[in-house]
């Protein structure tokens, strides 16, 4: 009896504990870690000529991004990521700081509608909301992964999503009739907060509705509207920019090829409205893009064409990653005149601090030298023309070849009735040599070439002839398991003349800059990389960087760099 009572008491006490243990309430952790150090030393002619800059400079830090996930129940997850960072060279906490890097709440309502509050990553189409890649990064060899990971991670560039804050929700329904499914996604985000005596608050609202029909046809309607809130500022005029993109897609398999035909069409309006409702300036533009793609296991080929009106404006799709109105981290000021050093290929390839994290309401500055054909991605205004791409990989994936080309004409001439003809092309080869040769250790060779060409006829003043070429190569050889010796090259050359446009606050062309280019830039890299996994590795490398702008006596820089990075992404 006593034993029975003991067991009963034991049962009564444990039952609530056991039942509470059934609720999936838990806290779990993940995180990323990085240790980075670089040191640059002046070399070349500038070392002797420039007597005001230091002979060498560098910096480094250790950072841990600790992610905490709290799931109070099966429907909700609260996530925060806290960064603890310590700059090298400081003591007693003076160079250390703690930041909240991300904070979000995710959940599902009634097992039907998911929502996300706080930090979120958003993307729609290349014409409405899209974070397109930076210039000079196409076909970049994987041996430059350490730099690229750093830039993308520090700037929250995950694929072509923009990191924003606000509310996002989506749901989908499946049917059993002519409509297979309907998916809907909505978001409201605050792009720019209230600034004291500054610009108004900038919000972006958007949504996507995708309807899949049973006959392999799908229709999607995407809409975003970015606008400034009039009441949040003393400014007399506020901006608005609605963009709509309708997408049609049809897929069909013929023999062993999967065909996909897609059509994007839509338009934008952008303007500024005064408090009394008067429109100061408004412009509307349309776009159209069609692609026909065929794929199978070994090849992918596509042909397409696009038309983007000169007045098409989309803050979500035309905001650029590289911010040319910024100071580079390495040798920001140089020469005996202590000039601000312009952003170069070296900075674009290695420096996360020259990148932009926020949507821009006007067309951002760019350097024609590095991106003359599509400075605003696929949504670059004033372009019409066809494009082509082709990819091939052999049976055992030991060889991958990729090529693409695009030819555009301007729809309207800038400053002249003559129109630019713009051509871009690229070719990339990746070869796993251990599969193709007697080599036993894993050896990967990558090589690529990209070219941009701009031509315009007319008088001496109107004529443009500009050509740029980017050569990239990389070789990694596995010395023993997971330890690779890596070497790489990025070599850029641009030559010719162009006419840069100067725009006013409404992006209207108000002037020009006659530009001459004769520039060559190289980054040579040699080092070791140890991969614990694909995303956990350390890299120790030495770089030789040369910048030589022959149109200017002062635009020359040679650096020797030692770079170390430990990267851990979980």
């Amino acid at each position, binding site marked *: 009896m006593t034993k029975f009572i003991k067991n009963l008491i034991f049962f009564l006490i444990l039952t609530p504990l056991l039942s509470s243990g059934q609720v999936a309430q838990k806290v779990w952790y993940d995180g990323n870690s990085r240790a980075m150090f670089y040191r640059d030393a002046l070399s070349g002619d500038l070392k002797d000529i420039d007597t005001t800059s230091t002979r060498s400079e560098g910096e480094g830090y250790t950072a841990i991004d600790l992610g905490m996930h709290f799931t109070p129940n099966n429907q909700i997850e609260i996530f925060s990521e806290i960064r603890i960072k310590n700059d090298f060279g400081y003591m007693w906490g003076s160079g250390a700081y703690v930041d909240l890097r991300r904070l979000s709440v995710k959940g599902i309502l009634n097992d039907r509608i998911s929502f996300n509050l706080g930090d979120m990553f958003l993307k729609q189409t290349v014409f409405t909301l899209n974070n397109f890649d930076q210039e000079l990064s196409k076909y970049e060899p994987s041996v430059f992964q350490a730099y690229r990971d750093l830039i993308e991670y520090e700037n929250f560039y995950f694929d072509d999503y923009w990191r924003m804050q606000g509310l996002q929700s989506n749901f989908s329904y499946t049917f059993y009739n002519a409509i297979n499914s309907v998916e809907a996604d909505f978001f409201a985000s605050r792009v720019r907060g209230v600034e004291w005596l500054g610009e108004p608050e900038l919000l972006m609202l958007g949504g996507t509705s995708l309807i899949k029909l049973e006959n392999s046809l799908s229709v999607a309607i995407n809409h975003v509207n970015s606008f400034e809130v009039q009441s949040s500022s003393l400014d007399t005029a506020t901006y608005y920019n609605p963009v709509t993109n309708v997408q049609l897609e049809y897929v069909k398999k013929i023999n062993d090829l999967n065909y996909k035909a897609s059509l994007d069409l839509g338009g934008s309006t952008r303007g500024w409205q005064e408090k009394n409702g008067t429109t100061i300036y408004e412009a509307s533009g349309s776009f159209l893009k069609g692609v026909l793609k065929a794929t199978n296991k070994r090849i992918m080929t596509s042909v397409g064409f696009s038309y983007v009106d*000169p007045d098409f404006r989309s803050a979500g799709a035309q905001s650029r990653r590289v911010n040319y109105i910024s100071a580079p981290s390495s040798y920001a000021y140089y020469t005996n005149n202590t000039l601000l050093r312009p952003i170069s290929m070296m900075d674009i390839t290695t420096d996360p601090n020259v990148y932009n994290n926020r949507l821009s309401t006007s067309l951002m500055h760019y350097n024609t030298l590095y991106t003359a054909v599509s400075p605003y991605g696929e949504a670059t205004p004033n372009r019409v023309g066809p494009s082509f791409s082709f990819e091939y990989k052999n049976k055992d994936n030991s060889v991958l070849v990729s090529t693409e080309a695009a030819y555009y004409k301007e729809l*309207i001439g800038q400053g002249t009735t003559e129109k630019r003809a713009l051509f871009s092309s690229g070719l990339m080869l990746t070869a796993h040599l251990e599969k193709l040769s007697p080599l036993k250790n894993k050896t990967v060779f990558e090589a690529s070439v990209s070219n941009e060409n701009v031509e315009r006829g007319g008088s001496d003043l109107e004529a443009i002839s500009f050509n740029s070429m980017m050569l990239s190569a990389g070789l990694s050889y596995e010395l023993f398991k997971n330890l690779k010796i890596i070497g790489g090259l990025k070599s850029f050359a641009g030559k010719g003349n162009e006419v840069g446009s100067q725009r006013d606050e409404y992006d209207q062309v108000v002037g*020009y800059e006659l530009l001459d280019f004769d520039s060559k830039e190289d980054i040579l890299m040699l080092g070791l990389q140890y991969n614990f996994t694909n995303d956990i590795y350390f890299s120790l490398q030495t770089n030789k960087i040369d910048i030589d702008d022959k149109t200017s006596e002062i635009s020359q820089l040679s650096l020797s760099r030692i770079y170390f990075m430990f990267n851990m992404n979980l």
Partner: protein
Amino acid sequence: MKKLTYLFLLIAALFISCEKDGIEGPNLNDLFGELNIIENFMIVGDSASFTSGSAYFTAKFSKIVDWKISITGLSSGAEKIIIGKSNEINATNSLWRGEVSLLPFFKEENCSVLLTFPMHSDTISDSFVINGAKNYGNGSELVVSDFENGFNPNFTNFFQSTCLKKIETGDAGQSDRFLVQEGTCDWDWLIGYVDYPANHWLQQGTLNANPDNVYFNMMIKGDSTLSPTNEANSLFKLEFYEDENQDGYYDQNTEDRLEVEFDVNWNGWKMYSVKYSDLILAWNSGGNAIREPNKILKFRTLLLANPASGFAKADVDYIVWSEGSPILNQ
């Protein structure tokens, strides 16, 4: 699938062919191109009489450019400036009816003509003969005095003992003669004043009753004298006395006085014009506070200067009432 491909190609061809006319932004040639004179600079209407006629200029350039035509009277020193931005000078943008930009007025005289381009060093010169000077006014003007017949003794006045008023010939704002007012007074702000009674104006008539339609115009010649504190030394004041009950007298307790004052901070002749409705009611004005130009009994011009600031000067010429707009616009 084949039909779809054809559709794609068709749409592509359609859009490739839809290039736009015109240009985006300013013309490159206008900003950076060389300036060439395609058609020579010509004067149409030389030896004109501006009492009824006009003249204009013609030229054609290789680009849109800022241009400036300066016509200077070789005898009077009067100057007319015509500016424009175009690739062509023609009757539309260079018509000249003999008016002046910088006083004095043009006379019957020879003029030099200069075409210049602010952003280019090119200069083209020519000459022009004026056979008849322009008559300002639209027919409704009333000239108070142009001092060509001397100083009207009915214009009562007072000038300090160390100051003077006199009629001088040559370098007048209009025609030949003008009234000099100048002096130094170290004990009072007043240099001197002149009253211009309506019944002694050179041209007699009644002004329009609408104060928005009546302008008082007066040529004043300033000098570059500055006070020790680097301010304009001469202060000019205008007082207008209304005879509201039309009894021939001004009573400050029952009638209005309107006034305006300003620094004479320029050098040379300048036409000062003020709309009657812009005049300020005097602080001790006792009338109906309605501006009634048709009831003006007289007006007074006062030259003032800080006693500590030394010499002051403001000469006067061609005092005229105009209707509808300032006299130089007519």
